[in-house]
C-alpha cells in the first residue's frame, strides 16, 4: 500500500499522535478538558508563541539559533508602550508597523554580527539577550507600562471578535503562519533557506548568497518577535521591563524542535512547528486539569525538549542507515 506507506513517512505523525494521547488522556481524567473554555484558553495562549516560532523555525532551518527573541519582544513592547503614552490614538496598523520595524532592526543587528564575524549565533545572541534587556531598562527607565497607558482598541485586539467571534491576534497569527508556509515552500528565498541550512558550503558554490539569506532569516525572526511584543501588550495589558519575555525563548525553541525541525538545519515545516506549539499550549492548559502544580511546567518542558532532541538525533541516525549516506 504505497499510500499508507507514504502516510507513515510523514514526519509530523509522531507529534500528532502525542497530541492525541495528551488530549485523550486529559479528557478521560476530566471531561471538562474538552470544553469550549479550555480550548479557547489554548487558542488564545498560542498566537504569541506561534508567531515567534515561525521566525525561530526559519533561523533553525538555516542552521542558526536566536536566543535573544525574548529581549527583542520586550524591547518592541516597551517602545510601543512609550508610543502609546505619547500618542494614545496610534492606530493598530501603525502599531504593528512600528513593532515590526523595531524588531527587524534588532534581528538584523544579530544577523550582521553573526555574518560579519563568523561567530556561532548562540554565543552572539546570548550576548545580545542581555544587551537588549539592558536597553529595555534604559529606554523605559525601569518603569512598567500600565494597563491604562495602553489604549482600548489595542487591548480589544486580543479580546473582541472581528469575524465569527475570532479575536484579532488569532487572525493575524494565522495570516503570518500561512505566509510563512508560502514563503518556505513556494518561493525562491524559502528554498534557498533550506539549501543553506542543509549545506552552507554547497549552497555558496551553487551561487546562493548565504550572507543575504542569514540576514533575511535573522531579520524576519526579529520582526516577528517585535510583532509578538504588540501581542503581549494587547493580551496582558502591561509591559514590565524585568518580566516581559524572560525565558520565552526556551518555550519557542522547545516548540520548534518538538515540531520536527532539525537542529542540524535543512529540514522542518510550518505544520510541524504549529503542532509543536499546539502541544505545548495543550500541556499548559492540561496541567491544572491533571492536578499538576504550575511549578512543574518548566520541568515538563525541559523533559520534552531533551526527549525531542534525542528523537531528532535518532531519526537522523535512521535516515543515515536508510540512505547509506554520511550527509543527510
Amino acid at each position, binding site marked *: 500500500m504505497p499510500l499508507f506507506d507514504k502516510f507513515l513517512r510523514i514526519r509530523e505523525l509522531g507529534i500528532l499522535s502525542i497530541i492525541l494521547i495528551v488530549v485523550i488522556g486529559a479528557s478521560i481524567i476530566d471531561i471538562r478538558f474538552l470544553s469550549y473554555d479550555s480550548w479557547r484558553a489554548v487558542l488564545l495562549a498560542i498566537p504569541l508563541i506561534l508567531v515567534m516560532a515561525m521566525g525561530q523555525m526559519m533561523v533553525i532551518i538555516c542552521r542558526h539559533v536566536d536566543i535573544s527573541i525574548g529581549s527583542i519582544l520586550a524591547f518592541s513592547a516597551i517602545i510601543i508602550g512609550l508610543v502609546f503614552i505619547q500618542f494614545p490614538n496610534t492606530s493598530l496598523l501603525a502599531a504593528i508597523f512600528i513593532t515590526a520595524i523595531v524588531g527587524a532592526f534588532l534581528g538584523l543587528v544579530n544577523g550582521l*554580527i553573526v555574518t560579519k564575524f563568523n561567530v556561532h549565533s548562540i554565543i552572539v545572541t546570548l550576548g545580545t539577550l542581555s544587551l537588549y534587556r*539592558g536597553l529595555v531598562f534604559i529606554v523605559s527607565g525601569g518603569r512598567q507600562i500600565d494597563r491604562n497607558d495602553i489604549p482600548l482598541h489595542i487591548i480589544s485586539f486580543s479580546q473582541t471578535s472581528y469575524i465569527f467571534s475570532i479575536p484579532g491576534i488569532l487572525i493575524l497569527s494565522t495570516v503570518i503562519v500561512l505566509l510563512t508556509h508560502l514563503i518556505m515552500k513556494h518561493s525562491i528565498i524559502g528554498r534557498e533557506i533550506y539549501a543553506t541550512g542543509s549545506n552552507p558550503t554547497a549552497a555558496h558554490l551553487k551561487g546562493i548568497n548565504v550572507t543575504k539569506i542569514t540576514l533575511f532569516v535573522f531579520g524576519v525572526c526579529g520582526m516577528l518577535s517585535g510583532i509578538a511584543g504588540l501581542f503581549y501588550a494587547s493580551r496582558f495589558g502591561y509591559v514590565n521591563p524585568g518580566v516581559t519575555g524572560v525565558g520565552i525563548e526556551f518555550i519557542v525553541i522547545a516548540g520548534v524542535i518538538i515540531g520536527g525541525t532539525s*537542529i542540524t538545519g535543512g529540514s522542518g515545516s510550518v505544520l510541524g512547528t504549529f503542532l509543536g506549539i499546539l502541544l505545548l499550549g495543550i500541556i499548559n492548559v492540561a496541567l491544572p486539569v491533571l492536578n499538576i502544580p504550575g511549578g512543574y511546567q518548566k520541568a515538563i518542558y525541559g523533559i520534552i525538549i531533551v526527549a525531542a532532541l534525542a528523537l531528532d538525533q535518532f531519526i537522523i541516525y535512521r535516515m543515515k542507515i536508510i540512505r547509506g549516506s554520511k550527509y543527510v
Partner: protein
Amino acid sequence: MFNNLNKYLSDNPTLRYWIIRPEWVAVFLLIISIIVSIQLSPFFADMAFILDSATPYVEYGLIAIILTMVIISGEIDLSIASMIALTAVIFGTFFNAGYNLPISALFAILAGLLCGLFNGILVTKLKIPSIILTIGTLTLYRGIAQAMASDFSLGGYPSWFVGIDYRYIGIVPIPVIIFVIFSLIVGIVLSSTIYGKQLYLIGTNPETAKYSGIKVDKIKLLIFGLSGLISGVAGVLGTSRLAVARFNMATGAELEIVLMVMLGGTYIFGGRGNIFGTFIAFWIVVILRSGLNVANIKIESQLTILGAMLIIAIILTNYIYSKSQK
C-alpha cells in the same frame, strides 16, 4: 611603521608567538577597567574592598575554569547556572529533610555530577550538539529545581556553615583562596600533563585525536561530569553565602560565566585557550561589576555593558587568531 613592525614580527616567530596572544587583550582590558573604576569613584582603590567584592563571583569563577576546559575540548555547557540552582535546592531539601549537613552537601555535589554526566552521555553517545542540548537541559534542571522547591527559600542552616564569604585568612576571603588554588591546579593539569595535551588535541581535531588512540568520548564525558561536579560545589558555596537556597539562584549566570571564558581568549571552536586568560577575565568581571556598582550604575544597565563586552571579546579573539594564523 606598522608594516615594519609586522615584518619584524614575522622574522621572529618566537617573539610573535608571545606578543600576538589573546590573553594580552584580557590583561589590557583588566588595566583599563581598573583605571576606569578608579576614575568613576575614589573609594574603589582599596584591595580589601576588591577582594571582598570578588566573593560572590567565586562560584562563577570556579565554573568558568572548568568551562574553559569544556570549550577547549570543542564542546560547550550552558546548563551550568541551572545546575547551581538545582544542586543548591537539592542540598536545602536534603538538609530540611533531616539529613546532617555534610551528607546533604555530598548528595548535592553527587547530583551535580549526575547532571553533568547526563549532559555528557547525551552528547557523546547520541551525538547531539552540546550547544543545543545544554539549552534543553538548562530548562530541564531549572524546572526540576522549581518543581522541588516551588517558591520557598530553603534555609535554617547552622551558623558555622552560613557566611563563608565572611571568613578571612589575613584580608583574603576564603572563597577567593579556594578559587586561586583551584585555578592553579587546573592550570597546571591543563598546561603540563598529558591529559591537558589530549584535551587540546580533541578540540583541534576530534577525528585525528580518535585515530591517535585518545579516548575522546571518555574524556569528554569526564569533562562534562567535572562541570556538573563543580557546579554542585558552587551550589553549596552559594547556599552558604546566601544562607538560603532558591530555585531562581544564579539566573542568567551563564552570560557571566561564558563572558569570563571568552574574555580570557579561549577560542569558541575549541583547541585553544588557557586558564591564565580565564583567571584574568574573572578579575575583569569582578572589577567591572564592583566598579559600576560603586559608581551607582544600575544593575540593569550593567547587563548592556556585559552583553556588549561578550560580543566584543569574541570578535577580538577571532580577529587575533586569524592574525596569528598567517
